[in-house]
């Protein structure tokens, strides 16, 4: 049997870890125990920033890759982090999965990085958690917000003061008032317990981080026999539905918990504000497009492919439901 080293930057708890454990047990079951996974949690093998390189060089056979860390090597895959109008988790994951499997641009990019794309995560839609009451985009003006990537750029154009800070400092910074708000997601607000020090949640349901997937070492993947390659491919595809269901559950139960807790306040963005948010997001989308085009990629066409997939899956989802 083959034992594969899997590197993940996060803890072995929570919804992501459970989904990965599920994937490992499915792989073992479906391959008749020919594929086994050894997890290295919490960056105990390599940190999140270095996972792509670690997979390429064979330090890890597979691992969780966050595209934000490699804006150059995974420039096109960073399409998943753009704040496009797409906050449905299933639609988003399906779209980026199909794009990663089929688009030539991405296939070339992964080939160049020496890795094989297996499947995708999502952070879920972006929310804001704050120390004081925040109900609208007007309210975030001049607030000190920790945010990242294109979301940070957009918040900045909306008048917020974006602060960079290491994740380890965030809890204390929210507590002391150094930060007013943090960009976060329902399940992770719960996991990191930031509601203890910042009891106001603004539900923005804004885009999601989809440049966030599971990749494998090319050699390790190619060493599998045809049957086991199929097992890996099928399990990877099923992973999306499985992860979607458990993430949806944990987001909902986190939200329910916050709603029931009287000390925590959830407010919702108005329709006008949502429109304004999406309008402002276009700036950072265009900036990404510019970078891609300067590297000779037809960004317009690539983005079209992505939008088409999103629209198709939106329709498919309404059919299923």
């Amino acid at each position: 049997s083959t034992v594969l080293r899997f590197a993940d930057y996060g803890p072995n708890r929570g919804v992501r870890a459970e989904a990965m454990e599920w994937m490992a047990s499915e792989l073992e079951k479906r391959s008749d125990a020919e594929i086994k996974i050894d997890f290295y949690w919490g960056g105990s093998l390599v940190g999140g920033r270095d996972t792509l390189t670690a997979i390429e060089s064979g330090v890890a056979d597979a691992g969780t890759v966050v595209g934000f860390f490699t804006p150059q090597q995974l420039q096109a895959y960073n399409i998943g982090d753009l704040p496009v109008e797409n906050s449905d988790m299933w639609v988003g994951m399906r779209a980026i999965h199909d794009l990663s499997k089929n688009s030539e641009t991405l296939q070339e990019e992964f080939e160049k990085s020496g890795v094989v794309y297996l499947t995708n995560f999502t952070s879920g839609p972006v929310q804001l958690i704050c120390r004081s009451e925040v109900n609208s985009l007007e309210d975030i003006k001049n607030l000190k917000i920790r945010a990242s990537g294109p979301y940070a750029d957009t918040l900045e154009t909306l008048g917020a003061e974006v602060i960079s800070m290491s994740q380890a400092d965030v809890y204390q910074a929210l507590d002391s008032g150094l930060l007013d708000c943090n960009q976060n997601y329902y399940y992770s607000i719960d996991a990191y317990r930031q509601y203890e020090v910042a009891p106001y949640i603004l539900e923005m349901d804004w885009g999601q981080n989809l440049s966030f997937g599971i990749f494998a070492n090319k050699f390790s993947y190619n060493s599998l026999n045809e049957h086991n390659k199929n097992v890996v491919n099928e399990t990877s595809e099923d992973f999306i539905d499985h992860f979607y269901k458990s993430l949806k559950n944990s987001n909902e139960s986190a939200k329910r918990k916050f709603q029931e807790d009287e000390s925590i306040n959830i407010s919702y963005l108005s329709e006008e504000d949502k429109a304004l948010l999406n309008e402002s997001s276009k700036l950072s989308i265009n900036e990404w497009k510019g970078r891609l085009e300067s590297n000779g990629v037809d960004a317009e066409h690539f983005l079209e492919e992505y939008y088409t997939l999103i629209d198709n899956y939106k329709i498919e989802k309404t059919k299923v439901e």
Partner: protein
Amino acid sequence: MGNIELNLPPAQPNRAELFMLNISVIAFYGMAIIVTTNVISRWIGRPIIPDDILLVQELMVIVIMFPLALITACRLHISVDVFTEGLDKKGKKILALLEHSVGLIFLFLLAWAATNGMSKAWSTQEYYSGVLDIPVWIGHFLFTIGILFFLFRLAIMAVYDFRSLLRGV
């Protein structure tokens, strides 16, 4: 460390090593200035130095790696001397040779690894997302420089101590 320091005198750091020490001092105060400036400007209004966390990370590489050659020359590496205190001079020189050999193995592998890492960072042209989009290779380059000078000094020390052992001084 006490005893061997009394027996084996530190070597005189060369100009390059003294220069690198000075650069490291500048980088050290640079970190303090960047962070303090941003704390004050953030308190009054907005932080004025972009990508402060990323800049501090780059400076950390200089602060840590650049003095390594010099502290090797001055024999400032920390070791456990409980079991070897009773040895005579000759015994201590033999231990010093063991020390250099083990050090050379580590430093050779580390230098090899660092050179690979630097060329990889160069070939991918990766950068840290931010206002300045700092290229990743810069830090890896500085890291490699620090290690190469360290390795070079360690080799000199090994030759120096080996000769002195042969001379039986």
